[in-house]
């Protein structure tokens, strides 16, 4: 086994993701197979997670995938996948579409195609109430924690150039670091942070800084070079928006009856125009 061979294999592998697929149209494939394979994280409440009572996969992303499959007239099959594997899973054709906390950035859009925005995540900062921090700027120079891989740490670094950002394994670990004063603020999506604010013990309350750092548009991930499939998915989203189905799903997971009590404040629209 020579080192050159190994190196070449690695190079070759690194190219795999960028070779455009040459095959029949994916829309036809999905329709003829009768199944839409949807990849989702399974560990991201309330987007996709395992319900403890029924032990079934549920959530906002799960319902969106179901919606797309219904409108295509096919069954849906879910596949749980990790953050690290989600993009290769899609590009290697293990799944047809991914609904997995995919925030749009131009760099990311070089690897996968994004559907219209189906969710907009208000990225916010959460602090300990006793720290009396009320504005984003007050945090410049302080330590900020975020979940590794959940959202772009770069955005917070741009906004607060003197702060250090530490990425933790998950939201719970970041929360613990915040409560233990290892960090001064936790950065994340409004929905995610709200649950911590509500569940924090009374003797160490937390608060969100009112203004969002920025609003991250989320799209469904589709392989590049599948214009017809992408158009079909987009059309489904637009129609479901007009018919009120998207709002219905939103209210089911984020509305007044949920712990989040959020108002829908985004449109289904092309991401690139945002």
């Amino acid at each position, binding site marked *: 086994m020579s080192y050159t061979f190994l190196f070449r294999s690695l190079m070759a592998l690194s190219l795999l993701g960028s070779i455009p697929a040459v095959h029949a149209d994916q829309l036809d494939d999905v329709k003829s197979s009768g199944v839409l394979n949807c990849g989702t994280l399974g560990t991201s*409440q309330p987007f996709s997670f395992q319900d403890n009572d029924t032990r079934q996969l549920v959530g906002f992303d799960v319902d969106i995938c179901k919606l797309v499959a219904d409108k295509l007239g096919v069954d849906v099959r879910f596949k749980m996948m990790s953050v690290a594997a989600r993009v290769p899973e899609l590009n290697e054709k293990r799944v047809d579409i991914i609904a997995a906390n995919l925030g749009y950035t131009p760099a990311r859009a070089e690897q996968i195609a994004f559907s219209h925005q189906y969710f907009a995540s208000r990225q916010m900062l959460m602090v300990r109430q006793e720290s009396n921090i009320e504005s984003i700027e007050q945090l410049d120079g302080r330590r900020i924690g975020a979940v590794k891989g959940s959202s772009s740490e770069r955005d917070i670094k741009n906004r607060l150039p003197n702060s250090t950002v530490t990425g933790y394994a998950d939201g719970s670990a970041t929360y613990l670091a915040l409560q233990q004063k290892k960090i001064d603020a936790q950065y994340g999506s409004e929905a995610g942070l709200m649950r911590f604010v509500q569940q924090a013990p009374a003797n160490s309350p937390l608060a969100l800084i009112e203004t969002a750092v920025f609003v991250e548009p989320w799209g469904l991930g589709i392989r590049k070079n599948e214009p017809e499939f992408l158009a079909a998915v987009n059309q489904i989203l637009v129609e479901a928006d007009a018919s009120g189905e998207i709002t219905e799903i939103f209210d089911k997971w984020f509305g007044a009856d949920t712990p989040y009590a959020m108002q829908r404040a985004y449109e289904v629209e092309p991401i690139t125009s945002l």
Partner: protein
Amino acid sequence: MLEIVREYWPMLLVGQYPNGPLGGLALTLIVAVLGLAFSLPLSLLIALARVSPVKWLSFVTAQFVRVIRGIPLLMLIFWAYFVVPKLIGSSVSGFTTLVCALVVYQAAYLAEVIRAGIEAIPSGQIEASRSMGSSYMLTMRKVILPQALLNVLPSMTNQFVSTIKETSLGYVISVNELTFSANQVNNLVLTQPLQVFGVLAVVYFIVCFSLSRSLRWLDMRIRRSRAMA
């Protein structure tokens, strides 16, 4: 901690089953048992090849072991997940990939442990056995390996236990084993990660400790029966 166990034990024990694929501790055990069952014979073969007088055989296996040991298991699993289907031309499940990656990885490590054991046996023994007319293989089988394997049993036990713990890396390719389930629970409980990981630690401890204790007991018994203790 007890509350977490009381509330979430089905998820930790079997994952989504019967509403979905089997997961949790049950899956961890299945992966670990398969991993051990296949890696032990493979590692013996590799170790024998490595110390064998056949030059090319020992060279090839040495390079194989070297590369495998140089790659973090996490990366190996990740690559196996995307490369194996390309090699065999059909898609394989995350479960199969995890077992394959674990077997290859552990076999490389176990082979090193066994080789160290073989090399610790004084070479005079081989010479004595060979000069009495035994073949190379017979010498290995009857003289060297029994002593070598016994001498390195503590290190081998370590590797077995590692295998169990390393099944947890299946999360990168979404094998919903125990650690994956614990992460899901963590996501539901949210504010008690230390307790959730505490439960996880206790469960792994019980499984691993019983294995290492049984092997230690076996070791003692063999030593006693050979009056070596």
